């Protein structure tokens, strides 16, 4: 799957945006590209989910993996503005208690 995700560095935080979906088709490449972009001196990852139409269990798996990456550096994984349907999946799987979900 072609993805044109955007990565922005903001000090200790890596921001990821323009993620069209987080599904079985792209979960692994999303995880790997994000880890690749994650600078050695950074601690946190923020993922903008406002444009993410669909998340499935594989997408959740990728988020868990990134959560572990940030925890390992004493940082956090922050999810920004998930759509209502994505929010529902996070709640259904209790993942909203694990990740920091932020609405801006």
């Amino acid at each position, binding site marked *: *799957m072609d993805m044109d995700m955007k990565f922005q560095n903001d000090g200790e935080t890596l921001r990821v945006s323009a993620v069209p*979906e987080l*599904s*079985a*088709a792209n979960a692994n490449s999303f995880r790997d590209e994000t880890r690749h972009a994650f600078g050695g001196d950074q601690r946190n990852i923020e993922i903008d989910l406002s444009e993410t139409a*669909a998340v*499935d*269990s*594989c997408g*959740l*798996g*990728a988020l*868990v*993996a990134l959560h*572990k990456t940030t925890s390992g550096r004493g940082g956090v994984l922050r999810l920004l503005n998930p759509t209502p*349907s994505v929010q*529902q*999946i996070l709640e*259904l*799987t*209790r*993942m909203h*208690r*694990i990740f920091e979900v932020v609405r801006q």
Partner: protein
Amino acid sequence: MPDTFGAFRPATLRFALPCELSQVRQAAKTAHDFLIEQGCNDDILTACDLALVEACNNAIKYAPDNARQHPVGVEITCHDGQLELRVADHTRGFDWPERVELPPPESESGRGLFLIQSLMDSAHYLRGNGENILIMRKARPSAAAHAKPVAGARMENDRLITGLLDELSSSYESLAAIFRHSATQNKAADLIKFARGVLGDLAGLVGADWFVFRTAQNQSRLDVLAASESALDMGSIIFRGENGDAAFLEAEAAVSRQAIWFDENRVLSGADPLRQKPRSRGLVYPVFVEENFVGTLVLGKNVKRGVSSPAGERAFTSSQTNIIATFAQFLALQIVNARLQEEHVAHRIIARELEIAGSIQRSLMLKELPQLPGFEIAALCRSAHQVGGDFYDVLKLTDDTALLVIADVMGKGVLAAMFAAILRAVLRATPELNGEPAALLARVNQILFDELSGVDMFITAQLAFVDVKARRLVVGSAGHCPLLVADGSTVKSLSPEGMPLGILPDAVFVSETVDLPTNCRVLLYTDGLTEAMDGAGERFGQERLTDWFNKGGHQARPARELQEDLANQLAQFEVKTGLNDDQTFLIMTG
């Protein structure tokens, strides 16, 4: 089932999803659009979207490589008060847990089934042969339910109960039929009759008008085991190889390992036996037992003239297909069992054959060796396998003379043992030549040549005529390893010329004569001694054998002691590898 929902007509969307994860999104969108058309609300849409994605992901992720060319089947049916989503996969299947628990938060997988369970009202996973079906249901508000909510709920319950009863009774019938047949199978020796009975019952259960079951022979050919009518048996179907009838439906099913549905519009190639049933609809079902292809089952329904069923409608419902799969699986197991039993009998025959060969060989070995005045003879024969091709013999000719024999029949089993026995008999039946080893070998070769070359076998042999009064040894060899004579200071190695027996019809042999000094030792052996191997892959070899034989300490030791010593040397050498070849040797001292 009676239409309990009045005028409401269920709508169905059916499509094939290529077995690729990148296609799931599009499939979900197709389903989403259909559900919007059917007036589903947002909550239902969200739930169905995700449940379908999870089901499809699993169907694709767990499909084995050889099933990837088969698409995932998706079917969505909107009833008035309920949605039903069916996803048919070609994975090995799994047992759906009674209750799916959420995995620990740090787990990166395992949320798919939980999501399906949470989003749907019910999920059932039916495992079939080569295809499994996940059936997910979710209630949705219906017009009838709004008007008469209580009656609607009751009707829904009634429908579910009727459905459950249907499923139960059909499984009961197939199980009962199978148990009935199992009971008779123990008694029925005739697999064909048994198969006909099982398939007749199956046809009755699923409403088929005819059937034919072909079993695979030699991995390339299908032959009829049982058919409802003899017209369907038109000889073998070759499904592999250059002359394969690949265009035949049953051959196609055998090669593709997939079930094939056919209807009366399907054009069958030239000699396809199924052309005997032109106006039929049905299923060609390949049957496997543990990945091994056993055969094909075809079940067909006659289509009446003037009656046209909707194009693409299958002859059997999915629960009927499950019953067909169950029966076919059962019959295949019986076929495999019957074959195993035959093999078991064949194995027992082979074991008996080896037993006979072993007793022939034991009878060849003399319990007590004849002895010569002033000399001692000892021998040993160790077989690496149940039956070997080595043997030795000592023929006492006069008070002072004897013929020492050692031979190695190339080959194993009954035939080798038989030739050893024949050789022994021929040698004993030719007493006039026993004093002339070369002439004797030539005669034996003439007698045995046709028999030996006819079965591509040959014998290496060594004959030594010993005259103790003259202290003389005359040696003849048919391609056998050398004979050793030691006198305390040197070892003589004798290998007179000669081809093995059974190679040339008129082979010529020469003999060599050697004097036997006082306190001499003579060794006849087979190449199992020199070929013996140790843990490092080194062979015992001619040199080691000669060195052992030449040891000064051996002088004046009786033959029996030397035989025990050599046996110990060999056993120590092979302590890590064990006995790999027959080892036979004969020692004479005097």
